[in-house]
């Protein structure tokens, strides 16, 4: 046990490890807050779809040699999020099909473009690290960490301020509209925030694993807790805990960060599911 602490201490001397931990925990917090809404709105796959869009956008950005990829990836992903979430109600192609279409489309086009206009000799490695986020979390610069902190604070503040409105719109959109809540506006807000979180989270777990970060904590919390507030809080705690534990374990055991966090989420989900089944749900 002591050895582990000594080893951890050594690692924490490096700023990049501390950065990874801060960013990881913040992203986990943000994604879990909005994850509850997405799961309940039956939009679990939107995280997946948007992350593929972000992947496609990243491919285009790297081909065009943008100095700052973010400036292209973020708007492109936000735009797709708006199209997907707003079109949800009365689009000709229904929700899940639209998400699947955009998702695989962006993935294919992104990979194709990267292949044709390949700038690096190690294409397979590049693609792999974008998809599974192998190392980028450990190569964050100070500026990137600050950007992440600012955006995360922004997301959390938005969530707290609009908590009741998000609840109303999630539970019953037509009632909310009929009684004067501007449901479209809040759907738009949710779409934009989700897109921001996804682009941030790409650094942490890579684009294939983001939806795990969004849906697992929410689903775990829903096994046990029974009110919206307790589910939200529990989901945030679970997500932060799993991100923290996942990053530590991956440092100690030398495993890939993203998949270790997701495995931690899966383990917690299994525990919560068992607890929920055993007690029939305990919390209020």
């Amino acid at each position, binding site marked *: 046990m002591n050895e582990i602490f000594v080893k951890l201490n050594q690692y924490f001397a490096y700023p990049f490890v501390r950065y990874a931990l801060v960013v990881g925990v913040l992203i986990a917090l943000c994604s879990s807050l909005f994850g509850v809404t997405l799961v309940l709105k*039956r939009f679990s796959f939107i995280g997946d779809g948007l992350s593929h869009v972000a992947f496609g956008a990243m491919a285009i950005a790297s081909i065009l040699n943008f100095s700052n990829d973010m400036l292209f990836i973020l708007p492109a992903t936000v735009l797709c999020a708006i199209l997907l979430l707003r079109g949800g109600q009365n689009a000709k192609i229904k929700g899940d099909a639209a998400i699947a279409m955009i998702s695989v489309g962006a993935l294919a086009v992104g990979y194709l473009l990267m292949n044709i206009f390949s700038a690096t000799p190690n294409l397979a490695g590049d693609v792999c690290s974008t998809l599974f986020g192998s190392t980028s979390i450990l190569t964050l610069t100070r500026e990137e960490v600050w950007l992440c902190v600012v955006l995360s604070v922004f997301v959390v503040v938005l969530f707290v301020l609009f908590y009741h409105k998000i609840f*109303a719109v999630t539970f019953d959109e037509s*009632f909310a509209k009929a009684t004067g809540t501007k449901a479209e506006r809040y759907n738009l807000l949710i779409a934009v925030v989700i897109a921001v979180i996804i682009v941030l989270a790409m650094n942490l777990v890579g684009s294939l694993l983001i939806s795990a970060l969004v849906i697992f904590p929410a689903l775990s919390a829903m096994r046990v807790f029974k*009110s919206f507030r307790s589910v939200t809080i529990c989901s945030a705690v679970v997500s932060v805990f799993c991100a923290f534990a996942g990053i530590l374990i991956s440092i100690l055991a030398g495993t890939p960060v993203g998949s270790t966090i997701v495995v931690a989420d899966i383990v917690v989900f299994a525990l919560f599911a068992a607890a929920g089944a055993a007690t029939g749900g305990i919390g209020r």
Partner: protein
Amino acid sequence: MALITCQNLTLGYDGKAILQNLNFSVNEGDYFCIVGENGSGKSTLLKTLLRLQAPISGSILMGEGLNPNDIGYLPQQTFVQRDFPASVREIVLSGCQGRCGLRPFYNKEEKELAKKAMEKMRIESLAERCYRELSGGQKQRVLLARALCAARKILLLDEPVSGLDPKVTAEMYDLIEELNQKDEMAIIMISHDIAAAVKYANRILHIGETVFFGTKQEYLQSEMGKNFAMLAGGTKNE
């Protein structure tokens, strides 16, 4: 005094008209029933009354000092709600959302309103319970309490008893009648249960191939009403 007046209303979607030239009004204290067969345009009329959808032509006038948002609405239960983790209190309170505007949190007044609504619906004891664990009748009462939070003078009920057993149905109708009599809420009820409409409503709008609008007595004298009475008589074997 008329709370809602509809003039020459033509309804439909994608530019196709389903119902044409509807004229009716809902007065204070009315128990107003909208009946009709499936596909006759009941839901479209409801969405139009709630301003979720624009009419093709014609106008809906609200009574003095009344806002379209002041209609309390009891929707049919949706797929999303079936496993929604939310306590009864949270759901009832969300009925006050329209009053909040941009204010992020509920104030004391609104919390009090939600408490009163739960008392009226006799669900105070369920306040902390989880919505998805309630019975069909309890769920309906929760949603009705939420509608009460949003309502100032009018409640719009969409098939309030669909899927409920006869005993719970009767309780539901009693509750609605109580709101109409005691609290002087105007009720607009959409239903295909003509028997209940004739029993409780004072005015009836029957939509379909022909449209009828008038008091209950007039309805029973009308061609449609007579058809119904014959049917009802037939099934009762009297």
